[in-house]
């Protein structure tokens, strides 16, 4: 066995290394055929950022249309396609892969002290499948598009014109990408932890990613069979979802939501994973309630499979089932609440600094809490009867998916950016961007809670004149958001043109990934690390390089 390296005294490898994972081999083939988890993570990152851009453009078009009721610069049919594609692209091509595939692929082996994930070739296959499925989805978009809403409900989806089949096939293939990532991560976490890293002193990021992977493995195949059945209905009229033939359209919804509800936890758990990493570092304090957070991650994974019927309260589902699902929905909020309180308790009496990762983490705490609480409101059966399919629902899921997951993704992106690319970004512009995004987000989506509770239905092209002021306000917010993201794209791109000036550990963080160089060498560590302390022991006397001043 290779020499082991004892921590907590962090070694000081040459920084930056002359040869690292980015420059060790060159040429496009060395990237397209790599099995290095870091390169795969970077390629995923570029891909999901492109997907975010695409989905974002669709969103801007939707909000632009909604400035006025009635006929506009796009027809109603086009509008239906645009919001459908906004949803499908954002969910399947951006949010679900974002943190696990882009950040997790890069960071997980480093965090565990491993040289790679358990199945590097399967990892590359995941990427290929993601690209293939995305390509099919793009072809579907340009060859007629789909107007079913991202939820593909029958009977409309089984009978409408448009490229439903192609899109469904694309999503089916992306599903395999998700499954393979989940398989890879679980095997990696079980078998590739460094010596000394037990289940109870691995970073909480790992616990949350583990829980995410369980959901990916159990839920995604059901999406697969749902999509196959949809194709069978379209092609062969097998009858399962068609009431004229004795089938049940609500059955489609059961099938669809058995995946899609756990899927939202595939989206939020990795976000929570990042927050558990960022908050202790920027509070200079040990995480509060390590085991509670770990158990909560697993509880969320389990209970997430028990609540899907809360999407179907007004679909024709029986009252008994609806009542049961409503009750179970209240339960699933509890572990999330436990986590929020633990993060707050971590910050309490900590020594807090407000670098960009922490700004996004704090945004997460505020916005995810609002999103989560409004989820409870929607889970209350009699209330949902009025709020279902209104903008209240739209606001809720944007608060959890964007105010939650995207904020956490941005926190992680900024936190690990120096590790991935060896450069620091401009802290000043990062703060400007974070402020614009936080304010813009609230302007865009708080107004939608009001719109929804006043009765504005979702997915509607036209609306009553009394809703216009709030729609205008919301659209204005979307422009602030866009500006914030454009600024972010600019300073991140600019940072990549600088020489590699980042230290190995710019945040003074514990955790094995910070003992590797920035950027890491291809095999991650010169020597196999030996773990002798927990990942958040900020109280222990540790030799750490002083926290570098924020970049220009």
């Amino acid at each position, binding site marked *: 066995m290779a020499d082991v390296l004892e921590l907590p005294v962090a070694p000081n490898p040459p920084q930056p290394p002359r040869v690292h994972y980015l420059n060790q081999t060159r040429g496009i083939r060395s990237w397209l055929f*790599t099995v290095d988890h870091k390169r795969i993570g970077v390629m995923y990152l570029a891909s999901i950022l492109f997907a975010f851009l695409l989905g974002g453009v669709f969103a801007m078009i939707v909000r632009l249309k909604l400035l006025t009721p009635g006929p506009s610069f796009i027809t109603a049919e086009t509008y239906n396609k645009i919001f459908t594609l906004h949803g499908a692209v954002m969910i399947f091509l951006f949010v679900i892969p974002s943190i696990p595939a882009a950040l997790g692929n890069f960071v997980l082996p480093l965090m565990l002290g491993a040289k790679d994930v*358990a199945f*590097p*070739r399967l990892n590359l296959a995941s990427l290929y499948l993601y690209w293939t499925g995305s390509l099919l989805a793009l072809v579907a978009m340009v060859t007629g598009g789909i107007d079913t809403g991202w939820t593909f409900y029958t009977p409309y989806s089984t009978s409408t014109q448009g490229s439903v089949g192609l899109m469904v096939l694309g999503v089916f293939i992306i599903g395999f990408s998700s499954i393979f990532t989940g398989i890879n991560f679980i*095997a990696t976490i079980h078998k590739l932890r460094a010596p000394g890293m037990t289940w109870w002193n691995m970073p909480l990021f790992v616990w949350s990613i583990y829980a995410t992977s369980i959901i990916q493995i159990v839920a995604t195949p059901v999406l*697969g069979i749902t999509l196959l059945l949809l194709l069978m209905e379209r092609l062969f009229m097998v009858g399962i979802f068609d009431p004229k033939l*004795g*089938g049940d359209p609500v059955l489609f919804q059961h099938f669809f939501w058995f995946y899609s509800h756990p899927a939202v936890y595939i989206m939020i758990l990795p976000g929570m994973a990042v927050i558990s990493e960022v908050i202790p570092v920027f509070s200079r304090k040990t995480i509060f309630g390590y085991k509670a957070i770990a158990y909560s991650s697993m509880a969320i994974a389990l209970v997430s499979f028990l609540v899907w019927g809360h999407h179907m309260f007004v679909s024709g589902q029986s009252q008994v089932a609806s009542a049961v699902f409503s009750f179970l929905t209240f339960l699933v909020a509890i572990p999330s609440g436990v986590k929020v309180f633990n993060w707050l308790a971590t910050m309490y009496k900590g020594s807090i600094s407000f670098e960009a990762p922490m700004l996004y983490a704090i945004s997460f705490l505020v916005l995810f809490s609002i999103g989560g609480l409004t989820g409870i409101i929607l889970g209350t059966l009699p209330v949902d009867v009025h709020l279902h399919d209104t903008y209240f629902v739209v606001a809720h899921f944007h608060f959890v998916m964007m105010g939650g997951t995207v904020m956490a993704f941005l926190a992680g992106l900024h936190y690990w950016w120096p590790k991935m690319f060896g450069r620091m970004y401009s802290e000043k512009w990062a703060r400007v961007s974070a402020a614009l995004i936080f304010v813009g987000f609230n302007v865009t989506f708080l107004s939608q809670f009001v719109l929804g509770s006043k009765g504005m239905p979702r997915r509607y092209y036209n609306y009553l004149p009394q809703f216009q002021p709030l729609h205008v306000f919301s659209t204005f917010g979307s422009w602030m958001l866009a500006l914030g993201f454009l600024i972010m794209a600019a300073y991140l791109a600019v940072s990549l043109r600088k020489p590699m000036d980042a230290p190995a550990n710019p945040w003074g963080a514990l955790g094995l990934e910070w003992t590797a160089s920035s950027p890491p060498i291809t095999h991650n560590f010169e020597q196999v690390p030996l773990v002798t302390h927990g990942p958040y022991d900020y109280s222990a006397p540790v030799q750490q390089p002083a926290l570098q001043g924020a970049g220009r």
Partner: protein
Amino acid sequence: MSDQVVAAGHEPYLQHHFAKPEQQADASKIGMWLFLVTEILLFGGLFVGFALMQSRHPLAFLEAHKQLDKTLGFINTLVLLTSSFTMVMAVHSVRHDRRRQAIAFLALTLVFAGAFLGVKYIEYAHKFHEGLLPGRFYSHPGDTVPGQFMFFSFYFMMTGLHGFHIIAGMVLIAWLIRRTARGDFSAQYYTPVDLVGLYWHLVDMIWIYLFPLLYLIR
């Protein structure tokens, strides 16, 4: 692949990010079981749909299933069970460095798999002849209970998906035969044989449930 380094004294099958062969084998097995769970959930969806539709149309399903040949289904069940036996014997042979015996058992597994598909072909041909086809192509005359076609929608989807997995399994087993003949496996390293075996047993297990649910309804 270009990034892998084979150190001196390193077994050729041990990948560079694993410290020991056991670690690699254990990880591979965990990965395979996780994949099998995805297959269980995939087919499980069809079972759930079948259960729902059967409880909605019990008479139609009962009447429709009489078109299935119980004897052929019974034979196919025995055939597949035997193929599981020959598969596990193939793994056993490789573990004892008996290459030719392994190839023989793998080939036998292929034969039984082929037999399974042959019987299914006979069944399908009979169905097509009778107009018992999926969905819009259903044209069976003389149905006494409306909705019988729905049973056949499920019959073809479930046995079709299962048959697809049989074919995929056969391709994998043929690949194993090639690699075994090349001497890739030994008592020290037989993970691919083990994993394909697990996959094959799962395909058998799915049929163990399909047979009574489709052929033996009362």
